[in-house]
């Protein structure tokens, strides 16, 4: 369908106040639960502090208010959480672009039922690792990280709010030059507005107190219309100027992402001898395989006898990462989870993202975005 743009906000006063940008996303979730269109909503709730986002399944619409607020320091992944543990219910889920990409690949591979899921996309400029965030707040903001009550990313700045209501901000460029700021894979990510979800929601181009929504699918369109008819949200049309501002922000961010792709995947890409050093550290713990949202085979080739040599000190990179690369790199959505969980700090997402990019340049297939499966995909494992 032709994309539609609108501005929305929650009619419920508490949701409007506590939610980001007028709480439209929370109101849509509340509507879906109240009308029993879904059995649960998967989203993040705040744990011990603003650096602790915990995936939470909300089944009672009164609890939606507890999921309000932004959490940029929670680099979570919902794709395999759904395909492995929530495939038996009708679900609504808030998705960052990488979540939406993983879900899309899993839908194509029949691991998630597209009819049983509402994907409410959230525009995303990137996430920050929690411990990195705490360190950088201490160093660049001269603030005890425990005193931060809220954070947001706006106009190229990472902004923190303290208990007394004061705000402090630092340019993200400055943080990233010094090795802090967003995760490296987020810096390289080109999908800032998740048009692979049913709706793409965010504050870019929105007036204060309103959420800018791009309606992407028929399912998303029906949801917004019915939520409005049933009194859950107020809706209005954004101005041409608002649409233009949003587009401009998106384009600037994509351009920046391409610059980072050049930096991380070409200019500063590790040399072969550096990769030798990285592979030497590998403890073959399978964390990268197990966390990959798109890798789902029940019988993994890597556990077959001819690939397992217990006495081997550091696995042969060809028969471990080589096999993983040959199976998964076409489908890599650059979510960065493999790199996040690697106990040995091997920059895995860089090699996978680089290969996907080359594959994309040659075949036009974009993992997580294209409607079809990768050209070399074998459906034998489903």
């Amino acid at each position, binding site marked *: 369908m032709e994309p539609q743009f609108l501005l929305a906000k929650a009619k419920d006063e508490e949701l409007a106040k506590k939610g980001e940008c007028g709480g439209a996303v929370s109101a849509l979730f509340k509507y879906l639960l109240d009308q029993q269109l879904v059995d*649960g909503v998967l989203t993040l709730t705040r*744990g*011990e*502090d603003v*650096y*602790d986002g*915990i*995936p*939470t*399944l909300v*089944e009672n619409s009164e609890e939606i208010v507890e999921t309000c607020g932004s959490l940029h*320091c*929670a*680099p979570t992944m919902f794709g395999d*959480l759904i395909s*492995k*543990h*929530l495939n038996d*219910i009708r679900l609504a889920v808030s998705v960052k672009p990488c979540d939406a990409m993983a879900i899309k690949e899993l839908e194509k591979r029949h691991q998630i039922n597209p009819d049983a899921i509402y994907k409410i996309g959230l525009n995303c400029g990137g996430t920050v*690792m*929690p*411990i990195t965030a705490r360190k950088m707040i201490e160093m660049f903001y001269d603030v005890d990280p425990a005193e931060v009550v809220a954070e947001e990313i706006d106009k190229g700045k990472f902004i923190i709010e303290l208990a007394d209501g004061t705000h402090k901000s630092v340019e993200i460029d400055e943080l990233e030059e010094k090795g802090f700021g967003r995760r490296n894979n987020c810096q390289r990510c080109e999908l800032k507005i998740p048009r692979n979800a049913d709706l793409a929601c965010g504050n870019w181009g929105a007036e204060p107190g309103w959420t800018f929504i791009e309606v992407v699918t028929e399912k998303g369109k029906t949801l917004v219309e019915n939520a409005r008819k049933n009194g859950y949200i107020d809706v209005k049309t954004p101005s041409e100027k608002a649409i233009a501002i949003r587009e401009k922000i998106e384009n600037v961010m994509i351009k920046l992402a391409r610059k980072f792709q050049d930096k991380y995947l070409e200019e500063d890409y590790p040399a072969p001898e550096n990769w030798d050093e990285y592979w*030497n*550290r590998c*403890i073959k*713990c*399978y*964390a990268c395989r*197990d*966390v990959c949202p798109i890798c789902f085979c029940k019988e993994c080739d890597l556990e077959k006898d001819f690939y397992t040599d217990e006495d081997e*000190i*550091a696995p042969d990179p060809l028969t471990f990462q080589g096999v993983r690369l040959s199976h998964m790199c076409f489908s890599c959505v650059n979510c960065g*989870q493999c790199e*996040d*969980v*690697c*106990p*040995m*700090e091997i920059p895995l997402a860089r090699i996978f993202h680089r290969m996907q990019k080359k594959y994309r340049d040659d075949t036009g297939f974009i993992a997580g975005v294209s409607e079809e499966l990768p050209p070399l995909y074998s459906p034998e494992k489903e």
Partner: protein
Amino acid sequence: MLKVAHTICPSCSVGCGVNLIIKDQKAVGTYPYKRHPINQGKNCKKGRDSYQILNENRLKDPLLRKGGLEQVNWEYALETAASQLKSYENREIGIIASGDCTNEEYETLKKFATTLGVENIGYNAKNIPTFNFKTAPLDDVENSDFILIIGDILKENPLLGRRVILAKEGGAEIIAADYPEKTLTGINSDEYIQIESTSSFLDNINRNVLENPQQLSTVIISGLSGEEFENSLKFFQDSHVKLLPVMEECNSRGAMNLLPALSEDELKDLLEKVKILYVVGDDPASYMEESLKNIEFLITQNFLVNETVLMSDVVLPGSCWAEKTGSFTNTAGETQNFEKIVEPPGNAIDDVTIIRELAEKMGLEL
């Protein structure tokens, strides 16, 4: 129906954070806990598989030997254990714990023994003797300029190994020493020294390297026990280096703070002295079955079926770590609390409660 909850990994003594995925009250997986300062969401295979501990081989009911082991109610099991304990002299009673109980359990067990006047008490220290000095925090490992490692840290305790890797990326010099010809830690160090004995290795160490006051030097000792461990500690203790001994179980350090550390020989000696034994968490039958044969009455408290349970006269089903609230102290001395996430299976209950109820049945006030 689905819950993701924070906990501390019970698999080794590093003390990583891990999230458990609970579906319909059953642990079905783990999820990265990126906010955790020790491991930032990274876990080794053992850590990621830790949820399986909750589902395997569980004890669900109190058991009493009547020929074979039979299910009984709590009242009967505790009554029997209490009356047996009361029928022996204090010096005939032995209590042994393992290194993976909670600090709260050690405290309660210690109070139980003190109130009862039992001196034959300790935990299975896996041959690592008690030590008393300030150990290196994990952040110091990462910030070191020089690290000497005895043992294969990268393989055995990968999330401590990660700190070594980060130190190396920061420019630190890493020297590893161990018995095998090749180790994973060795191939990732600047120098690997294959040793024949720790004493000859220590004799040949150039102390000047370690004593350089300009730099932060850390020594990590793992995989050593008994005399070797003690000699290494003595050697480094009076130098300027920071020391980090790697203990075996998730709360060995906590146990050491509260109960006597017993080596295998000392455990055997203890068993020779006593006639009735109360085992909490440990599995002595797996390493000294012969010695257990002297015991007239055996009371075992555990969350799973093990060899000792099968030999016991009374079995008290306790809880797995994620089924109770408590704390573990990691090998670097940091105490971390964790919360109860799921209910224990069947009629199993919290371990502190079991010890308290046993004391109550004996007329003891803890």
